[in-house]
């Protein structure tokens, strides 16, 4: 018997009116696996993360997390659309880091990191602060814990955002183009934190990225999306080294040319 996948997209479709963004997606992600999603803009790659974070509803199919349905719940032996209580229960296993950081501007770095642990998990303030201090240390920002987001650089803000997401102890972390809004010289510090996270924490990671070098070095598997479908997937060496699909070749050629 094979182990239960951490995340399973089962025949998932997403449409906006007449536009089909994702078309019958089937994707399993194993526990602890690091998966990168690459592809041209409009290929539906960010939508995959947003659906898993329940920021988007889905039109067809079911998303499973550790063998339990996320988008649905079981009722009298059949699956019905999930209510909010069920979604919140399953969603607790997932954290996300955004392209535009989305830190709370009226709170310091420390307050950003303890807010949800206290209000959502019901942690004691001292415990939450201890955990947040550890995480801010991990992202190299112990010195900045009392700074407001407006006082931090983009790279620092994104590192706080990573600490904030980790403070909820998710099993799955989603990274949505987390370096795309950063000045080039700040990209490295954020990628370094993600590497560290991958090494030191038992996390399943799913990331949408334009950093091909990082995807190649960091991921166990790379998925190339095109027009709402997985066009090709495989270990980074194969996908980058010897892409089988013509579209993958074109995309990689264009990206590497520009890079």
């Amino acid at each position, binding site marked *: 018997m094979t182990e239960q996948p951490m995340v399973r997209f089962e025949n998932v479709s997403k449409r906006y009116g007449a536009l089909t963004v994702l078309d019958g997606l089937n994707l399993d992600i194993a526990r602890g696996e690091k998966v990168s999603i690459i592809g041209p803009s409009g290929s539906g790659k960010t939508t995959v993360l947003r659906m898993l974070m329940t920021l988007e509803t889905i039109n067809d199919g079911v998303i499973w997390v550790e063998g339990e349905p996320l988008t649905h719940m079981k009722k009298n032996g059949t699956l019905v659309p999930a209510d909010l209580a069920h979604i919140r229960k399953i969603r607790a296993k997932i954290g996300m880091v955004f392209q535009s950081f989305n830190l709370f501007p*009226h709170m310091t770095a420390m307050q950003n990191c303890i807010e949800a642990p206290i209000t959502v998990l019901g942690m004691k303030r001292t415990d939450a602060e201890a955990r947040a201090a550890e995480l801010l240390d991990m992202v190299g920002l112990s010195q900045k814990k009392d700074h407001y987001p407006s006082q931090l650089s983009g790279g620092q803000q994104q590192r706080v955002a990573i600490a904030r*997401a980790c403070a909820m102890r998710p099993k799955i972390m989603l990274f949505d183009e987390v370096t795309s809004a950063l000045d080039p010289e700040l990209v490295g510090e954020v990628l370094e934190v993600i590497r560290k996270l991958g090494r030191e924490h038992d996390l399943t990671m799913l990331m949408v990225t334009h950093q091909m070098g990082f995807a190649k070095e960091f991921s166990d598997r790379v998925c190339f999306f095109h027009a709402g479908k997985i066009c090709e997937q495989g270990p980074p060496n194969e996908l980058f080294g010897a892409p089988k699909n013509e579209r993958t070749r074109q995309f990689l050629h264009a990206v590497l040319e520009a890079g």
Partner: protein
Amino acid sequence: MGIRTLIGMLVAAVAVIAAMATQEAYRLFLPGLLQGAVLTIEIAILGSLLAIVMGVFAALARLYGPAPVRWLATVYVEIFRGTSALVQLFWLFFVLPQFGVSLDAFLVAVVALGLNVGAYGSEVVRGAILSVARGQWEACTALNMSRAQMLRRIILPQAFVAMIPPWGNLFIELLKSTALVSLITLSDLAFKAQQMNQNTFKTIPIFTLVLLMYLAMSLVLTIGMRLLERRASLGLARGRAG
């Protein structure tokens, strides 16, 4: 306009009132007018408090309530925005008793003006909530907050800053609308002025004093709101200005 200009205007208005009070012809009217002004202030303050409560509740109801609550809130807002405050006062004071519900004139004044301004206020609150960046909501969802937690801890504190200037406008509107309550037997500032004018025909001193008194009251309000705005935006953007 800078806060100093506002304070300067307030000082000037009070100084002119004081200077006029040294004249026998003006001093005569001052005690009566001040009495009326106290009632005006009472109605304005209580009406504003009711307006805030109604505005916040109606906005939240329209945004997040279940269908019947949403519907009820929309009916409330449209009725009180869509009819004149004067008619609302008359209706509550003269029509309601025909159905066996007699309310005290002061209560009617507070309720009518509070509900009226609250209806406008609900749109201010709703707009401010919707103006908070979408990414903030998404971050809250990613942190698995409930809707109540998001609103209370993240969204409303940010929306609050955007609400202050339009609420300032509404409070001033409310203050000026209190003049209508003279038509439902209350002896507010406007009523006192009319009464004195009818008895003495000293139109110039009476209405000049009244004008300055309303101006002074609204300036106090404006300065208060400006200070609140300054404090609140300081909290939101600490360090941005260095």
